[in-house]
């Protein structure tokens, strides 16, 4: 078989007058044409994955309860407005029970679109800036026992306003300070561990209470006997001077040894 005769590009040039056929044997025998278009990957349009089910889950003025998802999105096409919040993936959800409202608030931001929840159907958003906010308590009250200190009635009960006799210059006179009351009622008060959150998130009694443990347990310490204070003072001083001398001599010795080692 004759080898395939491929011309080098040089031969196509008008310089064919030059007898360059002698170079032909040096050209590769097999030559493949490179692809001019990628056959795989992005270029051929990756197949669409499954739909992500984005978009509005609740329409305008639809009833929602706390936690209901109103809008799923990639990025923030919509922002959370009144009584709404935004999740980790920018999902808008309701924080209160109410009716969905899609709106723009040019005073806050001229470009953003907001989703809010109003308490009553027909209420409009955004509310005027100087109008008091509509707030919902969302709590239920139930009876509880008052603290131990509070249950003890102070010696003179003050009945708030209108009690002429007990008000002095605008201040309602109190039946003794807190500390005095504490003293008065200490005997009656049960031994309570007053636990609470202390700095550093420690749940324990306060240092003040810990310091009084011995007192409450009625631990008796022998009385301090004052004997010869002057003698004691002299002894202490003698000890101090002795210690200082010792220290000085030791340091001198150290310095001396260092110098020696240097030499």
């Amino acid at each position, binding site marked *: 078989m004759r080898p395939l005769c491929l011309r080098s590009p040089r031969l196509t040039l008008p310089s064919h007058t030059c007898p360059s056929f002698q170079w032909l044997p040096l050209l590769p025998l097999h030559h493949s044409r490179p692809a001019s278009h990628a056959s795989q990957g992005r270029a051929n349009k990756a197949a669409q994955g499954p739909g992500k089910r984005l978009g509005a889950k609740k329409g305008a003025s639809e009833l929602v309860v706390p936690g209901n998802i109103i809008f799923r999105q990639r990025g923030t096409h919509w922002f959370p407005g009144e009584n709404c919040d935004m999740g980790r993936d920018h999902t808008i959800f309701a924080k209160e029970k109410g009716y969905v409202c899609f709106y723009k608030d040019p005073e806050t931001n001229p470009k953003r679109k907001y989703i809010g929840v109003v308490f009553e159907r027909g209420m409009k958003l955004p509310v005027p800036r100087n109008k008091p906010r509509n707030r919902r308590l969302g709590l239920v009250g139930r009876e509880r026992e008052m603290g131990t200190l509070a249950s003890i009635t102070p010696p003179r009960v003050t009945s708030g306003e209108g009690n002429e006799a007990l008000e002095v210059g605008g201040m*309602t006179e109190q039946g003794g300070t807190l500390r005095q009351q504490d003293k008065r009622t200490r005997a009656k008060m049960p031994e309570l561990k007053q636990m609470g959150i202390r700095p550093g998130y420690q749940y324990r009694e306060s240092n003040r209470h810990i310091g009084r443990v011995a007192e409450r347990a009625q631990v008796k310490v022998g009385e301090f006997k004052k004997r010869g204070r002057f003698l004691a003072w002299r002894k202490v001083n003698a000890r101090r001077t002795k210690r200082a001398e010792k220290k000085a001599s030791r340091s001198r010795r150290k310095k001396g040894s260092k110098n020696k080692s240097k030499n």
Partner: protein
Amino acid sequence: MAMPTYTIRPALHCLRNAARRRPIPPCSSPSFTTSTQRNVEALETTSTPPAPPPPNLDPNTVFTPRDERRLLRTGVHPIGSRRRRASILSSDNVPFEQMPYQCFQEARAVLAEDRSRKLLEIAEMRKRIAFWQNVPASDLGGEYAKRGKLVRMQRYLEQLKILADVNDPVIKKRFEDGMGESDIPLTPTLMLVELMLILGRDLGDMERPIYRYLADRKWREYKRKLLMQRISQMHIVPDMLPHLDPIAEVSLGFGRRNVQPGEFVDSRVSEIPARLNVRVFDKGERLVSIAVVDQDVPDEERDSFGSRCHFLAVNVPLSPTNTSIPLFKLKKEEHIVHPWLPPYAEKGAPYHRLAVFVIQQDGAWKGASLDIKALRESSRNKRDGWKIRRFVDKKPLKPIGMHLFRSKWDEGTDGVVTRAGVEGMNIEFTRKKPEKLPYKKKDGARYR
């Protein structure tokens, strides 16, 4: 070992400089005060002592806390910061006129010339105002136009007064030295008497427009910005008032404790009435009302929040020099509509915002007093449901300053509430179980 030298140095300085110490050069400029000449002289010395201070205690140089307290007991306030006082003690304290810097002295001469020009202008302006006051209104196009013209001229005159002094190095120095204010921290060692003295600290310089101007500028640099931030963060503005532009500095404290705007205050601390310090930066006496409002009172029936008035006083006199308003000192018959009710919060409820409003009573002039008896008897002025909006709307009142703090339930609340005689506090709030959406059952064919 010898004692380190730095520990004894201040004492040495004291001894060395005792002879050289000179008083700070008094401000030589004539002042534009609203008061009489006698008062001006009083201003030149830094404060007006009720009793002469001990000879060895100079308000410019005391720097140990013990000496400061001794001086305070005589009614004199140490001047400026402690650090400054200590440094004065060791400096030569050369007055500006004798500073040996040629450029500085030439610059001073330029400023002095400018000032003299401004003084001439002021005199001219005063003459003109006097002239136009005597011109009949009909020649000026009516009473309204005449008043407008005079107001504009007066405003320009005030501007000139400030321009005359604003570049004066002596004035700058005196202002930065604290204008007779002391910055002694309120320590537990201070006696009550001393505390009272600090509260009623002498701000004599606030009589002069330049110091008022400088104080206002300083307040607007940081403190007012902080307050405005808290007002917007805590929604004071739409919730309590439709609009608020503070022009007076209000500082608040309970006993020895100072309170920053928006701080949480323990219920036991706020059991006693607050003490207020209100600095206004425009001249003149005026009457103000003071209201403390809680806007977060839980209302279970309405499933919402109501409001309550914790304190209301009216017709309280206030001026740039008379700044201290301790609420417990106000007279019951003259001022107080609602006496102090300690702030409290229910257990489990969200925190309560307590706003202290200083409201200027703007009638025909800054002195229109309110009828206190009518206020006491009016059914709209009850504590519960009292709204600052309504109070301000109906009368010629203008909120000029505010401060706020917060309160939440703590261990002391039960005691505070019992002592104050508040009922219905044996309640605890818990979260309401959220309702579910009504479940709509689809038709049966779907489930087959």
